[in-house]
Every structure is written in structure tokens, then in C-alpha cells.
């Protein structure tokens, strides 16, 4: 069950919304999918933002990595689909 419509964005597009709750830019981070175990750059995750929230999916198996919703004043980030995120802090900051 995969989309041949190439209708997804990627982790780069989710970075702005994620900055509402995460102080670190995670696009350069490597994450492990809790479903299939694939370790990939978060920038390459398949992201859907045309819905009531942000949904990032594993590029290998399409299972949900994380979901972010802004409900009123509250921001909710569910990351149960990621086992871990690993970021090289020496890579240089955003600016």
C-alpha cells in the first residue's frame, strides 16, 4: 500500500511546525522507525501536512513516525513511532 502519487513533502517541510515544541532542528537527525527498524535521516521522512496536523512517515515502511497537532493554544507531539533520534551536535547550528 504505497502512494504512486508522490504527494508527500519531506522532513524539511515539517521543521517550522516542529520548532513550536522542539528547540533543536531535527532534519539532520537520524531516527529509527519503531515499526521496521530502518534508520534514516529525518529530512527524508514522508510528511503529510494537508490534514488537521503534521504526520511524518517512515520512507521505508510508511508507518507513522510522529504526529504534531496544534489544538488551540496547545501543541501536542506524539513520537511513539520513533525509537530514537540521533543528532551530531558538531554539525553546526542553523545559522
Amino acid at each position, binding site marked *: 500500500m504505497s502512494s504512486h*502519487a*508522490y504527494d508527500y513533502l*519531506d522532513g524539511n517541510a515539517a521543521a*517550522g511546525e516542529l520548532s513550536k515544541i522542539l528547540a533543536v*532542528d531535527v532534519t539532520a537527525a537520524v531516527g529509527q522507525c519503531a515499526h521496521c527498524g530502518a534508520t534514516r535521516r529525518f*529530512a527524508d521522512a514522508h510528511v503529510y501536512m494537508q490534514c488537521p496536523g503534521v504526520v511524518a512517515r517512515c520512507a521505508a515502511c510508511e508507518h507513522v513516525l510522529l504526529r504534531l497537532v496544534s489544538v488551540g493554544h496547545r501543541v501536542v507531539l506524539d513520537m511513539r513511532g520513533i525509537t530514537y533520534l540521533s543528532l551530531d551536535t558538531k554539525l553546526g547550528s542553523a545559522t
Partner: protein
Amino acid sequence: MWRVGTVVALRDETATARTISLNVPDWPGHVAGQHVDVRLTAADGYSAVRSYSIGSAPNFGKRIELTVERLANGEVSPYLTQEVAVGDRLELRGPIGGWFVWRPQQTELIQLIAGGSGIVPLMAMVRSRASAGSTAPFRLLYSVREPEAVLYRDELKALPTRDHPVSVTYAYTRAAPKNWPQPPGRINASLIADTTWPSNLGPTCYVCGPTSFVENAAALLTASGNDPHKIKTERFGPTGDRR
């Protein structure tokens, strides 16, 4: 979180694309490849947010440039390319992005591959390289629908003849110029083999454009021997519009 930029200049790049120059008093500086989120708010409170890559090089103080392509069914791009006037203010979040960036400290070979409006962040990298006086070897492969869709046409024309030149290869998907050696079509393995850095030289590759374009180009780069960890990608969605 949201900064306010004032539109100081507008420049039409093509019939459907416009560069918006903004003065952002609290701009913290940026790195080539980063983008901003632009938020528009209607008088009744309805708002829409879209991402746009920064096209200008980092060393312009408080001034940044966004090049926006107008999409027929877009919600924000028609406003930005047709309604916005000098003096208007726009809300921006950013700069955003720590992965799809190029810094002048990088000295390795760089292969840039752009599809349509994917040229914008890659142009920021080309401009950043020039303004930093970097001699890092750059090659650019730029795929567009037709010649009229080329952004930054004059600037790109001058690139191969400058000191520390950048070689530019064009590919056309719908209509090519007269006497063009290739029929219009998607980029393919032989174009990659003929015009991009040989993979055994270990270039860092940046691929940007519509999602299907990026997946195709990244797959071709990998198939020609490039290390997937050295291929950085940014996908603009189905039509090239990020939402």
C-alpha cells in the same frame, strides 16, 4: 517565533514567478538552503502558512529574497506573485533547516540538481559560494518544463564564464529550444553520466524540486554509484507547492 518583513522590491523572473525582496529588522542571518514559513492572515482571522526557500546569499544583512512560483490552484502563491506590493508586511518564521544547507567551509565537490522552482535554494548556494569567494567545484543540472520557465536566466548564463565557473546543464521536460539535441523528457541515467560529477569523486549532491522529480533524480544518482548518505534532498510536494 514570527518575524515581520517589509517588502522593499519586487522583480518578475518569468511570467509566473516573482522575486520578493524583504527587509527583516531582526533577521539573525541564514545559511544557503534554508527556508522560511510565510503566514498570511485575512481580515477575518483566516490564515494560511506556506514554506518558501530563501534565494539570496547569506551576506546581505537584514535583506532576504524569496522567489515564488505561482500555482494555478495555489492558496498563497497567487497572492504573493500578484497582490503583494512594495511596503506590505509579511510574517515569516525562520530561517528553518539544518540539513539541506551548504556552507562556504565545505570544500568538496558539489553537484546541484534542480527541478522547476527547486532551483531557488540551490541558487542561494551558488550565490553564497560567489559572495564568500569560495572555489569549491560546483556543477548544476537544472530541469524545467520549457525555456520560458527558467528562473535567474541571465545570472545562470554568466556562471560558466566567471572566475571559478559553475557549469550549468539544462534539461527540458515538455518543450525544448529549437535544435536541442535531446527530445523533451525526464532526466535519465545518460544525462547523469554525461553531465554530473563522476560518482567516484565523491561529490555531495543537493536535489530539490517536486517530490517525483527528487525521487527520480536521487535514484539515478544512487544507481550511478553515489553514496546515498551524500545525497541531500528537499521535496516540494506533488506540483512543486509545499502545501
